[in-house]
């Protein structure tokens, strides 16, 4: 029993990182109908910016988190302006291939600049002690991850549903042309979406570094794909869906490992993707919407 609860805690910690990344996927998809495959690499860049802020600028976790989020927001907007905006009216497949290109460009550009060797986040930067409840050990880092993730998700909900820019984002995602006719600046709204999504990825990068210590230039690939699965699982384009999908995927993976099939863990994540696409293509939270005419 203890072991099961411990595995659930493991799964939720991992899942909240997936959720943070998945939010960015889902927001971008919701608004421009583009699977931004470079999103996992923004996550990686965020991890490195956080690392350098902590080691070179000698900052604490929270300033490093903020710097990383700000830098990633800027980076996300740049990617959108340079790579995706010229293709906004091109076919979906052209944009998708470009996204893969951008992803590879960021990965290998990073290797070119700083080499492929991994870095280790310094130990002991989280002053929290681990706590023990009923024989289940929850590390300080896990608690921090959960706290940061939940806070950012609430903040995101607030932005999307209570602010003007959030209203614009919802309008653009619903119907770009109509939004334009209503006087909404579509370009700025899309940029804002990329900025917020990328900032979340940057935060996830720093949190990942703190929790798992090791960061390296290709670290974004697998979490990026998993987050994509999480986004589809919850229903791509739906913000609460991405959160639930991320947490669910983390827990599924932990339980698969707990059952003794640790080598199947990554496989199971993608089996989940296939099953969802077959039986519930709109995702757990999705509604089957009729094609707009």
């Amino acid at each position, binding site marked *: 029993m203890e072991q099961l609860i411990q595995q659930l805690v493991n799964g939720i910690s991992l899942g909240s990182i997936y959720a943070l990344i998945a939010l960015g996927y889902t927001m971008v998809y919701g608004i421009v109908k583009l699977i931004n495959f470079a999103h996992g690499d923004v996550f990686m860049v965020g991890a490195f910016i956080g690392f350098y802020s902590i080691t070179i600028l000698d900052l604490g976790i929270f300033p490093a988190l903020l710097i990383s989020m700000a830098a990633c927001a800027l980076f996300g907007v740049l990617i959108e302006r340079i790579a995706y905006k010229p293709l906004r009216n091109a076919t979906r497949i052209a944009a998708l291939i470009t996204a893969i290109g951008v992803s590879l460009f960021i990965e290998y550009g990073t290797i070119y600049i700083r080499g492929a060797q991994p870095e280790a986040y310094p*130990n002991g930067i989280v002053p929290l002690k681990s706590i023990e409840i009923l024989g289940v050990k929850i590390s300080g880092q896990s608690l921090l991850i959960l706290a940061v993730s939940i806070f950012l998700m609430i903040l995101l909900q607030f932005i999307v549903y209570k602010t003007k820019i959030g209203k614009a984002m919802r309008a653009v995602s619903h119907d770009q042309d109509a939004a334009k006719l209503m006087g909404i600046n579509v370009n700025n709204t899309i940029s804002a979406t990329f900025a917020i999504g990328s900032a979340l990825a940057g935060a996830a990068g720093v949190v990942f570094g703190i929790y798992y210590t090791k960061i390296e230039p290709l670290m974004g690939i697998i979490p990026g794909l998993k987050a994509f699965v999480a986004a589809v699982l919850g229903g791509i384009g739906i913000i609460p869906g991405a959160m639930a999908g991320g947490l669910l995927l983390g827990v599924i993976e932990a339980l698969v490992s707990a059952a003794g099939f640790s080598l199947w863990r990554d496989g199971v994540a993608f089996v989940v993707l296939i099953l969802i696409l077959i039986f519930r293509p709109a995702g757990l939270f999705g509604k089957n919407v009729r094609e707009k005419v």
Partner: protein
Amino acid sequence: MRQKKVAGIFASLMLAAGVLAGCNSSTSGGGDKDADKGGDIKIGANLELSGGVASYGQSIKEGIDLALEEINKEGVNGKKLKLIPFDNKSEAPEAINGATKLTSQDKVVAIIGAATSGNTKAQIEIAQSNKVPLLTPTGTADDITFKGGKLNDYVFRTCFIDPFQGTVAANFAVNELKAKTAAIFIDSASDYSKGLAASFKELFTKEGGKIVKEEAYVAKDTDFNAQLTNIKGAKPDFVFIPGYYEEVGLIVKQARELGITAPMMGADGWDSPKLIELAGKEALNNTFITNHYSSGDSDPKVQEFVKAFKAKYKDKSPDAFNALGYDSAYFIADAIKRAGSSDSEKIKKALAETDSLDLVTGKMKLDDKHNPIKSAVILEYVNGEQKFKTKVNP
């Protein structure tokens, strides 16, 4: 892509180390030229002096240079040994070119090299057909000397083979740590890891121990909490993790965070300063590794070597590659002495007959597969420092 990446990591790590090593070997290179040219016994060194794993080759050459300096004070059979180095650029095709040049052009009596198993395997064919003994200081793959039921009779090595470290670890767990139960956590993508785990399991169960949990991961994973929770549930006295430092660092950290306090142990794959950064000094306490050699070994033979090495190389503390390079030169010199001739055929026979040769990396004897039977050292991590724990004889 994964392979490229690993190569890249190595390249950049080794480049940094190589720069340092480079300074030292250039000073020693000058000394060789002063040696008497007439009637020297020529030994080839086909090593990775540049390229991806340059630090391995450089370190081995430093060891060989020091050994030859000492050997040549007395000479062997009234002659001096002369080293003909060849840089194989850490590439197999270059290693083949090197072996061809050394055997046909330079007419060496034996070749030392290469550092990696792959570059050594590339030379086997040439060594066999030209009947020149080939001695790898650090090639640990078991199919170098014996493959497909057939002995490569001209091929030798100075290091022990991978699975041996698993045996040593099992021995240590049972006899020193008094472990009754053990868990094994392997990298399922690595033959090295599987080989070590198999030999550990065999001896540990033979000694009456019980393997209570076997878990696996894949290289490049970052989250090991789920498997470690399973291991924790099985409450082992000892955890054997024969992996490489990149994952092991994270495994040790996560294991300690989950509250696994049992001693953990690995092999030479752990041996990197990066391990300490990844795992943290505190988490690494109560962990052990097996290795070929330790500069902290109190054996007078080792201390003598450390002193001589520091005197020659500006106070640098010799690592396992330095020691194995040094030993390889002595291994060959001893064989030439016993052969009483510089005939390759006789040297090969003498090499194969090597028995209780006292080397820095332990007293060595060759088995019928040309694999050395020798001692291994066990190091303990104490506050982020490797401390010599004990020496285990086979």
